[in-house]
């Protein structure tokens, strides 16, 4: 038998196995996307029987909608505050965890716990933490420390940050595990060589370890940005009646889309908003890839 034909056989087998997921991907992911693209130019309402092509009317309507602009800005805020915080914290914790030998598994487990807990449960527990006195845990602590109580989720200024903190707490586990895996791939020789050359611990961390982690950091930044751009469950469960309040101060784009689609049944408008979110995710990811790759 020829060498090439065996290889070809392998390739065919591989393609055969890949065929099923590809079909699945096309039907479940790709087709609805195309459908949604088409729908964004129509006035399709789930409750009405006819669909009309209306051009860019949906987009004009969206951009003149105060609530949309507010949720767009909120979404960007989630990314701006959430992503750096989660990356920075998880990197520090991962570096520290990498140093200890005893009970590393225990700490790792503790940090992963929030990530594997259902997000709805997490949201409700945190919602309870943030309650005004006499119920909220954080406010009880503040009271015991003789500090003034805070409104947290009830305040238009604080609510978004409260949700960011909860999300960071959840995402930490995931990022730490990935960073730890990355740290363990760094050849010890590099670090030993640096140590022999008289580099301090801090120098080793910031000049050797962190730069070597760049590909992993890039991956995490992209993944976390996408997850913060798609934030929904936390906000839905932590705001009164899932409204993204108070006064839309925590409403992200996904919640806006959800409301348009499944409360108002305005599928056309919701599709247009989805398209904008899609473009935003593409754009941010693209910038990050380009920016972070170039630096390395």
């Amino acid at each position, binding site marked *: 038998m020829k060498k090439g034909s065996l290889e070809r056989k392998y390739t065919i087998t591989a393609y055969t196995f890949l065929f099923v997921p590809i079909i699945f991907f096309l039907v479940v992911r790709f087709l609805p996307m195309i459908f949604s693209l088409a729908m964004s130019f129509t006035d399709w*309402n789930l409750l009405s029987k006819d669909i009309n092509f209306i051009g860019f009317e949906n987009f004009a309507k969206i951009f003149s909608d105060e609530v949309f602009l507010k949720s767009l800005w909120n979404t960007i805020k989630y990314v701006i505050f959430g992503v750096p915080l989660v990356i920075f914290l998880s990197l520090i914790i991962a570096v520290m965890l990498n140093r200890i030998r005893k009970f590393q598994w225990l700490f790792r487990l503790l940090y992963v716990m929030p990530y594997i807990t259902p997000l709805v449960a997490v949201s409700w527990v945190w919602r309870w933490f943030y309650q005004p006195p*006499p119920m909220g845990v954080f406010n009880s602590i503040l*009271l015991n420390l003789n500090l*003034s109580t805070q409104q947290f989720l009830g305040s*238009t200024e604080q609510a978004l940050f409260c949700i960011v903190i909860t999300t960071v707490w959840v995402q930490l586990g995931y990022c730490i595990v990935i960073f730890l895996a990355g740290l363990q791939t760094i050849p010890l020789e590099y670090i030993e060589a640096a140590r022999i050359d008289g580099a301090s611990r801090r120098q080793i961390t910031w000049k050797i370890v962190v730069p070597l982690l760049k590909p992993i950091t890039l991956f995490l930044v992209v993944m976390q940005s996408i997850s913060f751009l798609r934030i929904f469950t936390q906000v839905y469960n932590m705001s009164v009646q899932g409204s993204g309040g108070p*006064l839309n101060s925590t409403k992200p784009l996904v919640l806006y889309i959800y*409301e348009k689609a499944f409360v108002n049944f305005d599928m056309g408008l919701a599709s247009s908003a989805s398209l904008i979110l899609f473009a935003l995710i593409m754009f941010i990811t693209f910038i990050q890839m380009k920016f972070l790759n170039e630096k390395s």
Partner: protein
Amino acid sequence: MKRAILFAVLFIFMFSFAFSKTTITYWQYFYKTKQDTINQLIKEFEKENPDIEVKHVTFPYENYNQKVAASLPAGVGPDVINLFYGWLPMYIESGYLMELPKDTFNKDYFDNNFYPFVEKSVQYEGKYYAVPTAVRSLALFYNKKILKEIGLEQPPKNLNEVIEVAKKLSKYDKRGNLIRAGFTMQPSGQHHHWLREVLVRQFGGVPYTSDNKTVLYDKTGAKSEVLQWYVDRIVKDNVGFPNFLNDDVTAFQSNMAAMTIDGSFRLGTLDANRNLDYGVVELPEYNGIKSNFASFWAHGITTNAKGEKLDASVKFLEFITSPKAMELWLKNTGELPANPEVALKYYDDPKYGPFLKGLEYAHATFFADEKAQRELMMNAIDEVYLKDVSAEDAWKKAADTEQKILDEFWNK
């Protein structure tokens, strides 16, 4: 053998044809006691009408509208459907509901058999589309134990006096944080209705024109003073605030609120709580004006029902809205009969009585977009309470937003 099977199949086919029943489908959202009650009613109905079979399907409340929207256009949905009266315009506009046969369901029928607000709320552009079994209204719930602390058996009847009592019953910690509410202030609960249909009227205003096309609460009566009055109870009196103990129901249930405004549908939940000793009275009056907000779920016939199915659906609709059904409904679910004659028996009932009396002067809001109209009221309160916007501006903004929603709806 083959031939025998073929004959058998043919026989069964012919047989089923000769004795075929008309099957209709009834949809409602899932709520255990309501499901059981309808099942019981269906059994009785089928006994009376052996040629009709009713299929009963329930869905989680959250995706009720989606289910309907996905099925009806495809012609596989229900024939008779249970829906919130506030959704009627949306359903009718979408062409999902059929006008009810005029020979049975006309103005006389509604005037003679139902509370006055029902007739107005089940019609759309002069045609009738739905019939309720039960209705709901609001009342003042009070915690007997807490009121006794100041020697009261019942809260006073006047709004100002109620607030005075609430102030006395509110408790604070050393730093002035509210730890027991004298009166819950929860716009996301029933208060947005209370504000719109009760307080506005008690302050001399009218919420909307009678054709439901124009917002009037910012132009009549005390205008934005209503909102100011409401927010003052939170900020100045601090008898309660939004989301105290998460929500008003939790606060009242855990004996942490002396008084609260809630609907008749809450009776069941509260009765199940053994640690709570509560009473109910009519909503406090003000300036000598009594008002209340009523709402209901009603049954309509969809455009899917045609021919025999339509006849069967009409029969079924009449059956589940009959006085007999209302009695059963009240017994099982605690919801108030939509027929005043049926309700008459319960006027002296300590729990149902106040709600039933409230129904006589109740108003049902016309909702073009229930959620948006609820939220704009909540937002108006939040803006004054959280953002220090003037009550005038917030009230005007709410009215403008609501007017836009109504305009958009009527100009469709």
